[in-house]
């Protein structure tokens, strides 16, 4: 565990980059430092591998002061990924990745084998091994940067705005890739970004910093969205934090009803018995076909081309409440369709019911957060 | 008789007179070189294939010792100032062509496109956009050309007292008066530094948009330090 204890960085000209910052960075998870430019997030990151020395305060790595060990040893135990990847343009992809293993004294062959293994891990075609950085796209370069940082299998990974120089589509791919790699490797990752969406998407914990290097809030992303500490954090999160927060709420407990769902061979009685403005018609396998008002349906002669489209279905337990709500909003009837893995209808749910679920979840969450915060304070104090 | 500023009478000039002569012999060729270099550089800029051979040729020309040029020219122009000035103009040309070509090339394409889109014709685009932006590079070239010109004039002493301050060097040897050589070297160095300072001031005046103290080479973009390649010619 990395523990930042009341760390201050003041530059000779008096600028306060970081002001008495205390953070506990949990092992095997992604901790994101986020904030506007000038909030000291990069300085904080760079103090962890001593690229910047703090003016006051200490940083502990697994209980030991990082000042106690030689700076090169410390840095070799931490992967470091920066914005433009910072690849060595005179070395091939494979030799870039093999840099740290070679520094640690590995043989050339072993280092290259390790590099090839990492290329696959970060989703790079090994055919690129002999290319030079200028022959790669921005996204590929960044993948090489991540692979290079992982090469010696360091327990800690420091990432300084690694994805901010690539376009949004590539960025999304890189983020998903990082989450996948993290699931496999379980590194302790400290990730700096100015993009709150990226922070919310990647972070297990998110530290929001404000100008002058002060900590505004340190919380899991769901709590950050539902319960911002002050106006600054709220403003920084943006206008639709409520909607975004739904990403963290599960649809497992959502109450589904099968009442308005009818098979293609439904009888007139079945159609008449349903107490709903619209009925969802399925095919013989139970997959959704479309919506219709009951009076427009003739038993025994249901024509799929006359039905209203059912929009996009969601999978309860897999998709979040945000997806479920989105399905309901986009549905012509205001009802979202829930399906199982095979695409068979499990039931439908109204906007009303989703709204109830959101309120319940928020009430539960608030209680949980209050408990959690009491615990945090003990640790931080 | 052995004073620092006691110039032997056979030089036919006072110290100040030698300085004036030296500056004239050194600076007229640079000006002539600049006038010639502008159209040649424009051609090289337009016909890109022309540039690499021109660059190779100029490097080799620059390497030919000035003394050899002087000697060969004596047959045509006699033991005159002109014999010294013609090679110096040629050397200036050689320094200035790459400086101007690189300077003009450093103008970003989007700037040129914007100028064209605003309806500037080729002539106006050259004089109002390309030349001003290339000014720092051209002045960097002028600094090198001027420094080498001031140094090279002294070699003219070898072809019969056409070296202005360089003649002091010959006199120093003839009369075994090292202080005259010290005088010559220092005066030339000071002249070179003064001219250099004036050119830097000129650049500051001409390019108010550039941050003070910015090095011309690094500001021109793609190839930092490009102008360090053109070095002051010594002989």
């Amino acid at each position, binding site marked *: 565990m990395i523990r930042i204890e009341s760390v201050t960085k003041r530059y000779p000209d008096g600028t306060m980059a970081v002001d008495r910052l205390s953070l506990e960075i949990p092992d095997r998870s992604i901790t994101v430092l986020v904030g506007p430019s000038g909030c000291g997030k990069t300085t904080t990151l760079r103090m962890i*591998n001593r*690229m910047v020395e703090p003016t006051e305060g200490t940083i502990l790595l697994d209980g030991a002061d990082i000042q106690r060990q030689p*700076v*090169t040893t410390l840095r*070799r135990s931490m992967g470091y990924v*920066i*914005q433009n990847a*910072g690849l*060595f*343009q*005179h*070395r091939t992809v494979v030799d870039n990745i093999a*840099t*740290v293993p070679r*520094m640690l004294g590995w043989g050339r062959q072993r280092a290259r084998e390790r590099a090839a293994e990492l290329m696959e891990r970060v989703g790079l075609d090994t055919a690129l091994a002999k290319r*030079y950085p*200028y022959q790669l796209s921005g996204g590929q370069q960044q993948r090489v*940067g991540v692979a*290079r940082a992982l090469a010696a299998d360091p327990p800690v990974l*420091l990432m300084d705005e690694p994805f901010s120089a690539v376009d949004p589509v590539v960025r999304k791919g890189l983020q998903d890739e990082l989450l996948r790699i993290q699931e496999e490797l379980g590194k302790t990752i400290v990730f700096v970004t100015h993009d709150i969406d990226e922070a919310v998407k990647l972070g297990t914990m998110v530290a929001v910093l404000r100008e002058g290097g002060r900590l505004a809030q340190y919380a899991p992303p769901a709590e950050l969205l539902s319960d911002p500490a002050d106006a600054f954090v709220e403003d920084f999160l943006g206008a639709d934090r409520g909607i975004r927060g739904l990403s963290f709420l599960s649809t497992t407990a959502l109450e589904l009803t099968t009442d308005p769902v009818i098979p293609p061979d439904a009888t007139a009685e079945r159609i008449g018995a349903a107490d709903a403005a619209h009925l969802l018609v399925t095919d013989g396998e139970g997959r959704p076909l479309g919506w219709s008002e009951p009076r427009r349906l003739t038993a025994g002669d249901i024509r799929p081309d006359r039905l209203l489209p059912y929009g996009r279905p969601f999978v309860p337990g897999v998709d979040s409440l945000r997806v479920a709500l989105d399905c309901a909003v986009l549905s012509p009837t205001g009802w979202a369709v829930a399906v199982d893995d095979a695409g068979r209808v499990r039931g439908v749910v109204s906007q009303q019911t989703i709204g109830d679920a959101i309120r319940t979840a928020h009430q539960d969450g608030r209680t949980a957060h209050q408990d959690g915060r009491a615990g945090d304070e003990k640790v931080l104090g | 008789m052995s004073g620092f500023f006691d110039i032997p009478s056979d030089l036919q000039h006072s110290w100040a007179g030698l300085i004036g002569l030296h500056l004239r012999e050194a600076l007229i060729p640079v000006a002539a070189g600049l006038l010639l270099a502008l159209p040649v550089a424009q051609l090289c800029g337009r016909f890109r294939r022309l540039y690499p051979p021109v660059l*190779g040729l100029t490097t*080799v020309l*620059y*390497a*030919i*010792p000035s*003394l*050899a040029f002087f*000697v*060969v020219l004596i*047959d045509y122009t006699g033991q005159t100032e002109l014999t010294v000035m013609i090679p110096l103009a040629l050397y200036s040309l050689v320094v200035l062509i790459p400086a101007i070509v690189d300077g003009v090339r450093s103008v970003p394409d989007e700037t040129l496109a914007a100028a064209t889109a605003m309806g500037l014709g080729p002539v106006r685009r050259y004089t109002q956009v390309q030349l001003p932006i290339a000014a720092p590079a051209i002045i960097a070239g002028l600094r090198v050309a001027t420094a080498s010109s*001031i*140094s090279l004039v*002294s070699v003219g002493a070898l072809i019969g007292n056409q070296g202005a*301050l*360089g003649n002091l*060097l010959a006199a*120093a*040897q003839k009369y*075994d008066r*090292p202080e005259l*050589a*010290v005088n*010559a*070297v220092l005066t*030339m160095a000071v002249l*070179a530094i003064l001219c*250099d300072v004036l050119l830097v001031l000129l650049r500051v005046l001409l390019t108010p948009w550039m941050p003070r103290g910015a*090095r011309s080479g*690094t500001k021109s973009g793609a190839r*930092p*330090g490009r102008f*360090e*390649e*053109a*070095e*002051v*010619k*010594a*002989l």
Partner: protein
Amino acid sequence: MNIFDFAHAFFGDSANWQGYDGIPQRFLEHLQYSLLALAVAAAIGLPVGLLTGHTGRGGNALAFIANAARALPSFGLLVLVVLLIGFGLLPVMIPLVVLAVPPILVTTYEAVRTVDPSPVDAARGMGMPESRILFQVEVPVALPLILSGLRSAAIQIVSTATIAAYVSLGGLGRYIIDGLYQRDYEKVVGGATLVAFLALVTLVLFWAAGRFTVSPGVRRR
């Protein structure tokens, strides 16, 4: 007679190819002076340029020294040094080294200083020692510019080593100085042609050195 006739006559005369004043001998002497001067200048300019470029400090002092050194006229310096310490190899080497140090020093400084900072940052972050950062990250990228500084220095030395003849040493300058006093234009043109040829050879050698030592990733080809 024009320059080409002179050159033709000079190189066509078999007497010019033999003995202590023959072309091979003079060429070799010229090469020796040039290499020695380049070696000394590089031994001064490279380490200082690499160090200042790496730390990014001392740039203004370097620019000042380089400008001052450039302002010194080599021919004047030669005459002065000869008057002060007499004839020999040293008075030739002093102006040549003074001439060659600034381009090597300034270009090396500039080349290392302008290396993209992000790979250097990455290297430092992965725990590379400073010496390794300089030689394995910065120098390979700065190499084309460093070579160009060495190249201009070398060509200037080749051209200026002619002055060795002025202080009674050998080298290709012999032909130019002797030709001047003997009014023998064949010799002058021949000597100048040989100097230009050596300059051309220098260019080609540096081009080849670049091909061999600069990584294709830096050359981008």
